């Protein structure tokens, strides 16, 4: 267990160092998100129905944060594998006796942790600037978010598997942002079949908490069962697909090909 923690620490530290080293890039990202949150907090008042303004803001921000987190986690893993293959470090990572799937998991955790900290800080800063406070309810939202993130990691493994074999999937990764937008922004009440998709149930439950003040007791046990089941199933399927793709890449000698 301690060696897995060391793996997470090493990968989180590396991500943090790279965020520091590419400081202008990081700074522009921080400013972009700050202004987007600010625009959402202030602008939705101006363009929406004033009686629905608060609900619109909550809905837009929750959906946007989720869209960004999923996009960052899923696109990042794809780009990371392409980048590592191009620069020659991918095979070196595969030389770790811990296994590449654990290195990828530690990168997901490191990335999600760093970006969650940045987004939370920016959200608070924007709320402070706009003078409008969202109903965040961290005691319920954080546990729900953590369970939801498990399914995102599962989807990430699927993308990582594809990337290990095909490498050049930039076009797919670009289309992915629109697919994710659809999954995150469309409410389950409009498209109930999306419950089978990864993380949609979790986003929907968090929206209920933030917009309709749901508590733990307001959800049915089936909601929790679907949320947990969805996350576990996607994690297992994602890991299975990734390990299968890794085996194929090793059989065909595709690991360092780009």
């Amino acid at each position, binding site marked *: 267990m*301690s*060696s*897995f923690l*060391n*793996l997470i*620490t*090493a*990968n989180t*530290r*590396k991500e943090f*160092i*790279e965020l520091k*080293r*590419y400081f202008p890039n990081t700074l522009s990202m921080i400013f972009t998100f700050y202004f987007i949150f600010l625009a959402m907090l202030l602008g939705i008042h101006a363009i929406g129905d004033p009686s629905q303004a608060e609900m619109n803001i909550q809905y837009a921000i929750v959906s946007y944060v989720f869209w960004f987190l999923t996009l960052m986690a899923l696109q990042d893993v794809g780009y990371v594998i392409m980048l590592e293959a191009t*620069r*020659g*470090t991918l*095979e*070196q*990572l*595969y*030389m*770790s*006796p*811990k*296994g590449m799937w654990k*290195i990828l998991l530690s990168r997901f955790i490191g990335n999600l942790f760093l970006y969650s900290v940045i987004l939370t800080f920016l959200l608070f800063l924007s709320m402070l600037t706009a003078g409008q406070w969202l109903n965040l309810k961290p005691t319920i939202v954080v546990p729900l978010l953590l369970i939801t993130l498990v399914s995102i990691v599962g989807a990430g493994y699927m993308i990582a598997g594809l990337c290990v074999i095909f490498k050049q999937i930039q076009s797919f990764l670009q289309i992915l942002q629109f697919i994710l937008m659809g999954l995150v922004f469309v409410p389950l009440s409009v498209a109930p079949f999306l419950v089978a998709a990864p993380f949609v149930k979790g986003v929907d439950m968090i929206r209920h908490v933030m917009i309709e003040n749901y508590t733990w007791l307001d959800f049915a046990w089936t909601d929790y069962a679907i949320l947990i089941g969805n996350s576990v199933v996607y994690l297992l399927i994602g890991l299975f697909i990734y390990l299968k793709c890794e*085996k194929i890449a*090793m*059989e*065909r*000698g595709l*690991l*360092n090909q780009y």
Partner: protein
Amino acid sequence: MEREAVVEVKNIHKQYKKRKSKEIVKAVDGVSFNVYKGEILGLLGPNGAGKTTTIKTICGLLKANDGEVFINGVDVRKERLKALQYISAVLEGNRNLYWRLTARENLEYFAGNRGHSRKSVQEKIDKLLHQFHLKDKENEIVSNLSRGMQQKLAIAVALLADSEVLLLDEPTLGLDVETSYEVREILKDIVKENGKTIIISTHDMPVVQDLCERTVIINKGKVVADENVENLIKLFETSAYSFTLGTPLSEKQIQMLDETIPIYEYIDDELHVTMEQEDDLYKVMDILKSDATSIEKIDRATVDFEQVFLTLIKDGEEDVVVS
């Protein structure tokens, strides 16, 4: 006493299908050899001979169609991650590093990826930075280091794993003479001090001659020689002669040499002959006698390792195997 084999490569076969022509290419065709504890083994072969395929199969980065590889008795095919505890590698030299991280950050990151805490490896990192003369560059971003320093850092990263077997693919490629010498000396020290087993894949003959006790030469996916470097040179020295001629050879004599002696060279009245059979020397003498060519001197030829390698590669094409 029988030596302990740390790496056992047993009859590995690997073939690929070409994407367009669907033609089957045999990259490795029944390669077998052992590497013993504390030994530096040179893996030699021309481009496309199957060296990289062999190395990647040893590391478990490539799955062979057939055959087995054992590291410390662990089957790489079946228990890859367990086997990786005993092996570390520098596969693409300086490209194995993160160029935006500093030298120390690279060492810390790769140690972390093997499950070590940052704190636990600090002493070892300091020792390696000293040993590789990189201490004053520890906080320099890798992209700012020279090629030689990057190469040394890549080897240091592999050594930090403290694994029993170290696999180096072209460790001196692109290095200047001084850095190449420095890397060789460091590798010698590592074997002497820590008893590590090293496999070096290279085209650099002086590196093999200087570092390796034994060499495995691969050509067209097959092992054409598995022998002690000194023995290989001696073997070729005893069968090679230089004749200094007083008169030039006639067309007829050259034709006779072509028909009788497979490996010979005739430049400026100097005839260099490599004997494959004991009576080849008498055959050469008969050919020279046939046109009354005067012989001023006969010497046993000095052979360097490059000549040995080239001869073996040529022989390999005719399926002659030295072992």
